[in-house]
């Protein structure tokens, strides 16, 4: 049981961090960023290139991922999403744009980084073993702690910084925020860049554990959407809760249900369907959006 909880917490921390960026972008711009998984993959490949190809320290790779993805996110918002949102009132326009960006990034990743699975050597060696009750490699513990730390920093930034407060105001009521002098275009761009940066950071963190490959983007996006549906789309605390709930469900399911074959995700999806039928806005979302 201890091992199941430890696995669930580790998975939950990494999932929550993935979902944060997605829900931030959704809350600010009402955009379902289908390219979020590809941004995560891109971040992983940037860290891989810096650490393995260029031989620089891991922390440099992590910073490089954050910076590259932040610039990419800002550019995507400024030159693609902002014009589309300005010209089109239809939600599906941004959805199609996001899907197009996902395909585009897949192609760029294939051309730039190749088709192979890539990985960064372990940043910490050794395995924590508590009397065979909890077995957890030290690098996973480190990444889990870093993920939780990043979540705390992000929450602090959103609550106590001027930029964070402006973005929260924008998410709550765009019109009112604009009337109070919040520069919508600027903070939308910052928000998108921050969301993309978070995706890049998670990619950079996890490339040391799970590696990264071309095909990880789509499934990562699906899981991220799953998390924000559980927690409530556009709500930061909801994304964190959704991440931890999904991580725990996966950990419990894979252990308890393993004797019955691969039915963990079947059970998760079935549970989610029932849950959304009862509470379509998710755990912490508001029924009015």
């Amino acid at each position, binding site marked *: 049981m201890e091992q199941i909880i430890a696995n669930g917490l580790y998975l939950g921390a990494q999932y929550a961090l993935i979902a944060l960026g997605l829900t931030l972008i959704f809350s600010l711009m009402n955009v379902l960023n289908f390219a979020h998984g590809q941004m995560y993959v891109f971040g992983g490949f940037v860290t891989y290139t810096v650490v393995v190809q260029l031989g620089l320290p891991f922390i440099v790779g992590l910073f490089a991922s954050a910076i590259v993805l932040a610039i990419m996110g800002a550019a995507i918002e400024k030159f693609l999403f902002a014009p589309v949102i300005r010209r089109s009132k239809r939600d599906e326009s941004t959805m199609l744009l996001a899907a197009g960006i996902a395909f585009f990034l897949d192609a760029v990743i294939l051309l730039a980084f190749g*088709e*192979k699975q*890539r990985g*960064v050597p372990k940043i910490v060696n050794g395995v924590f073993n508590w009397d065979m009750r909890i077995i957890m490699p030290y690098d996973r513990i480190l990444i889990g702690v870093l993920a939780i730390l990043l979540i705390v920093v992000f929450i602090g930034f959103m609550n106590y910084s001027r930029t964070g407060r402006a973005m929260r105001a924008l998410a709550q009521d765009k019109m009112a925020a604009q009337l109070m002098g919040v520069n919508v275009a600027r903070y939308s761009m910052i928000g998108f860049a921050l969301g993309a940066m978070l995706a890049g950071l998670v990619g950079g963190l996890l490339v040391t554990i799970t590696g990264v490959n071309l095909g*990880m983007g789509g499934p990562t996006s699906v899981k991220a959407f799953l998390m924000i549906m559980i927690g409530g789309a556009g709500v930061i605390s909801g994304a964190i809760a959704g991440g931890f709930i999904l991580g725990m469900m*996966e950990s419990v399911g894979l*252990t308890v249900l393993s004797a019955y*074959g691969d039915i963990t*995700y079947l059970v998760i999806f079935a549970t989610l369907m029932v849950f959304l039928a009862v509470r379509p806005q998710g755990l912490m979302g508001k029924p009015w959006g």
Partner: protein
Amino acid sequence: MHKRTFLKFSALAAATVLSMPLMAHAENATLKIGFVGVTSGPAAAWGISNQRSMETRAAWLNELGGVKIGDKTYNIQIVPFDDQKDPKRAIAGMEKMAQDGVHYVVGPNVDDGAAAVRPVAEQNGIMYFPYAFPKELFTAPASNAILGMVANYQSGPAIYKYLKENKGVKKVAFVAANESDPLSQRESGIAAAQALDLEVVSGNVTYQVDTTDFTPVLLPVIQASPDLLVLSGVSPANAPQLIRSARELGYTGFISTETGQDATVLQEGAGELAEGFISVGGASTPELASDTMKEFVDRYTKMFGEYNDESNTKVYALEYIIETLKANPAAIDNVEEYKKTMDTFEAANPFMKGDAKLKYVGMTSFGQKRQVSVPLVVNEFKGGKFETLFVGQVD
């Protein structure tokens, strides 16, 4: 003025010289060889290594002036199609090949895709070389599919037998992705292990291909204390993570798979934790590789930046097609002629040292010759590269 005239003449001379090989090649007819397989997504490495092997070899042969088949000389043109590991797309790809007048296709890479394209191939006179193992594709009445590698039900028993006799393995566990290929490979692996009187201590644990943390997946498997953990049909993307998780959970037994893997990917993803990992390789071990094989690796690396060890096997399909067509030029647009030639076909194997032959095999497994003969090389991962554990042959 003189300088300008000199430059004009130089440019003209350069253009003439550069266009001469093109003119020579332009006189050649074109032989289109198709590829339908997965070149995107998590299993992209399988198909891309196929496509790039074909493109490397085709460019090399074209550079040498083309391939003489009967009275005509042909330039080889590779026609690729990404089926995205989706059977519906594979059918669309095979239909495209038929529309383009292609009679010889390499791929698909997986079981369901290979099974799906069978009617299209048979109706349109296409021979295809899948990297998929369902026996019904290669046994009569089917006759258009030729297995492009060694199947898991051929390599698996050889590996288990070796480990049982030489390493004292008694208990085996199987883990597979929840997809048709790995699941069918797991079933045949379990049957092979049981036939060798090995105890299967875990045989029903599966995982999603997009799993990022295999610790919870492997926990119940490791608790069953197997001597050998078989990663059935594992893709190169998942193998390092599975190995790493198993070792981090304290597993010290053997780990093996019957699929081809890439040494760099294993080294990057699992490092020293992958030491001793056993997998099926190709024909370019230092003991087996000929100078032609070494040059192929060099050319591949120059064209695409990085070699893929899976190409050690994937280099063969195009060679078999070309050499069989040379043996019977009437087969160039008539696959029935090709089939007639297969039973007696034999040619020198350019990729292996010594007097190795290209020939079709498969009588024991399929009752007819519907498999390319490539050496069954079983590798062990040591010090960041593969070392040959043993070499066998399929008949």
